[in-house]
């Protein structure tokens, strides 16, 4: 199973970017820092935001709310030889009751031509969050599953997949 890679440099960059969030637009900070600051929704150990496209997708999902790792699992192979067929399983321990349920799960694949690959709208009638499917991946990168609850919380799980054969053309 894929796990997050410990990286002191990444953590430093992320922290630096969050600290400098107030400087966005000043022109004094790098492109990467601007991207991180613009999203500002993840924790220091979360995967780096690689480009403007993913930053925009995450912004549209979060609308300023924090995206917190937890309550969601994303199981994928750590290495996929064929990027045309990469299996994944998304599960959650969040309740699925009328009062509080997962209303949507977003699947984002960094660097894919359509990075916002799928959106799964759910309802309490499904009983639990348990989805499995197969996707295409262009190259080795992070995959992000983000769940939004009916009460407005955002929970995420990440998986890094090494892709040998480009599955997107």
């Amino acid at each position, binding site marked *: 199973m894929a796990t997050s890679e410990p990286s002191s440099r990444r953590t430093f960059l992320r922290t630096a970017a969050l600290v400098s969030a107030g400087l966005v637009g000043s022109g004094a900070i790098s492109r990467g820092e601007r991207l991180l600051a613009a999203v500002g929704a993840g924790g220091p150990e979360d995967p780096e935001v690689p480009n403007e496209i993913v930053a925009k997708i995450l912004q549209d999902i979060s609308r300023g709310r924090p995206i917190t790792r937890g309550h969601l699992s994303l199981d994928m192979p750590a290495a996929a030889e064929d990027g*045309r*067929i*990469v299996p994944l399983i998304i599960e959650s321990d969040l309740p*699925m009751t009328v009062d509080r349920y997962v209303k949507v799960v977003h699947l984002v*694949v960094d660097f*894919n*031509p*359509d990075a*916002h*690959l*799928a*959106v*799964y*709208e*759910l*309802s*309490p*009638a*499904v*009983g*639990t*969050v*348990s*989805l*499995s*499917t*197969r*996707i*295409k991946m262009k190259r080795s990168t992070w995959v992000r599953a983000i769940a939004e609850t009916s009460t407005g919380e955002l929970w995420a799980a990440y998986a890094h997949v090494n892709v040998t054969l480009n*599955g*997107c*053309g």
Partner: protein
Amino acid sequence: MGMVGDARIRVPDRITRGEIITVNSIISHPMDTGFFRTAEGKPIPAWFIKDVVITYGEEQVARFTWTSGVSRDPVISFTLKADKEAPLTMVWTDNKGGVYRQSVPIAFTAA
């Protein structure tokens, strides 16, 4: 699986009222991205399922929005709280206006 749009939905043989069951589905579809060419060099236009609606009885229970990033012959599994005897229907719609429908009854095993 043969023709585009051929679809199957599998649910457990034995279901008791109130149980959360796993629903497995597959539909035959090329899910062309629009980025590939034929051997003769002709572009293959994008042709993919963009929307899946799941209805249980009269109630819409889930809806999926897809891109061509979903693999060819899409499979999707999800769960359902089987609390009534009613048909489970899936409708897949592609970007060229193709609409494909499949349905299975949810019926309970006598106790």
